[in-house]
């Protein structure tokens, strides 16, 4: 702070401090505190807000446990509250998306870092970036066209002879959602892993080769451990983005798929119950953060590795 004052004088320092304070207080801390406070209030008509009925309670949070449905899993049948199930499936399929993104991105990241001619790398990166510049809604929409019942994917598969009858892609549970999310977020996995592998000394790989290690062992013992920070930050990004995505599940979802953000959206924009929506949004934030922290603890990754 002293340093800033000496270099830029009190005026400019004050302006900068105010800008930062505006961002962190008005746009981040206070809104989230308001969200937290609001989530404990009941949904009342405007005239009764602040009246005797406006007291704090956990009612909004307990709505998660309303309305159970029967599900069977591995032969056991048990009843689960609908929203809990939705939340669990959101987490589960976000994990599936994360793993798929990793499987797709890792070979290409290795290719970019160690195999491709350094001269053609910038061109490749540019090509990879093009879909990233096209807006997310249009990318989801593109998949909506491709996966349509009479769409190009079915036409292609029929023509090749891989399938006999067209498949209802967007009516198969979470299939469409997973495909869309993988397509949208795979690049967020690719670049962190690429950065991590790039810093690996190629001599290490060559030494392992000279000593007779098979290719899979080189990856398992050398490349993978070295790229762990990149994998961790990529996974956290992809997981949080997927779990928080509203667009892709809404456009590519089927009648049997429901994402937790869609439930929040229904509370907020359809039921106009902002307080319950706040409670659900807070639950999403809290549980996703907990889940990510847990996963990081299991894989022994520190936060400082990710923020690199």
């Amino acid at each position: 702070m002293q340093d800033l004052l000496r270099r830029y004088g009190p005026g400019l320092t004050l302006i900068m401090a105010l800008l930062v304070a505006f961002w962190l207080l008005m746009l981040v801390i206070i809104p989230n505190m308001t969200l937290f406070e609001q989530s404990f209030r009941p949904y009342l008509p405007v005239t009764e807000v602040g009246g005797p009925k406006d007291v704090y309670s956990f009612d909004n949070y307990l709505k998660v446990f309303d309305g159970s449905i029967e599900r069977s899993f591995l032969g056991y049948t048990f009843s689960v509250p609908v929203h809990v199930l939705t939340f669990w499936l959101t987490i589960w399929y976000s994990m599936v998306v994360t793993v798929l993104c990793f499987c797709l991105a890792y070979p290409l990241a290795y290719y970019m870092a160690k195999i491709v001619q350094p001269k053609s790398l910038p061109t490749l990166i540019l090509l990879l970036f093009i879909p990233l510049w096209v807006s997310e809604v249009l990318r989801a929409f593109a998949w909506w066209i491709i996966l349509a019942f009479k769409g190009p994917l079915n036409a292609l598969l029929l023509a090749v002879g891989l399938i006999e009858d067209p498949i209802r892609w967007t009516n198969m549970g979470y299939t469409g959602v997973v495909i869309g999310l993988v397509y949208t977020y795979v690049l967020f996995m690719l670049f962190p892993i690429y950065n991590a592998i790039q810093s690996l000394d190629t001599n290490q790989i060559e030494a392992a080769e000279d000593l007779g290690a098979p290719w899979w062992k080189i990856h398992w013992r050398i490349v993978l451990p070295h790229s762990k920070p990149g994998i961790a930050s990529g996974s956290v990004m992809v997981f949080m983005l997927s779990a928080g995505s509203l667009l892709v599940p809404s456009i590519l979802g089927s009648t049997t798929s429901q994402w937790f953000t869609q439930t929040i959206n229904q509370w907020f924009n359809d039921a106009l119950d902002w307080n319950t929506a706040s409670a659900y949004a807070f639950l999403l934030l809290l549980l996703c953060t907990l889940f990510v922290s847990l996963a990081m603890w299991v894989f022994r990754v520190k936060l400082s590795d990710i923020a690199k």
Partner: protein
Amino acid sequence: MHRFRQNLAHLYMVLFLIFLLAPLVVMSGAAFNESKLPSIVPWRGFTTMWFTEMVQDQRMMVAFANTLWVAVAVAIISIFVGTASAILINSIAGKVRTLLYGLMISTILIPGVVIGISTMILWTKMGNALGTEFFLFNPGLHLSVLGQVSYIAAMVMLLVLARLQSFDAGLEEAALDLGASHTQVMRRILLPHLYPAIGAGAAVAFFQSIENFNVTQFTRGGADTLTVYVFSQVRSGITPTINALAFLLICVTLVLALVYEINRRRRARIEAAREAEARRAEEAML
């Protein structure tokens, strides 16, 4: 065996690029198909009618203009906030720095749904508490701007912070010793060094804002942006006018990418020529 694996890797790269780019091709193709539903099969013949219809679609044009306004506003606010934060973070140390930095970075990971709802609730509540009808406190795109800035500023901050690492603080000392004013130091020494990062930050902020759906959906009031409009159209019956728009946007992207690539190649060539020259000169000296 080694050759085989390398070819496999090349093949994988090509497949990956097809996976990434094919959807964009399909979407562009559907813009020229004379079918009521956006698709490329069955092909009903070439037409440009969807482009004419797009221009006549008032709601879409308004949404498009809104998107641009929001994106420009987000970019401008974000570069100010982001640059100030980077300079501030760069000049402090210890626990406070860790705390502030962590707080700033965490905004990127907060789900957009949470940002949208919290922004909406805070500002409308403030309006209610103050009992005013002033537009700032009503739902609308200005709240979308504020919500989007809350995490896009962090991205700008990261870019500028990275650039600050290569800044020689001694230059500022020298300028101060030679009698420059504080404003001059900022305007003539620090900022020129940061301009490339600020420019990149503005571009990132602009595109991130165009992309944004979650925050906008919860704060927009009745106004449309392009993402919200496309979203509502996909749900309520869509015509290929969206594809026409998508095609134009992809073309703009491609042109920008091409310009960038040509520029880069030219620079690389000049660099290579210079290096060769230096090498020749060195050899001549010996």
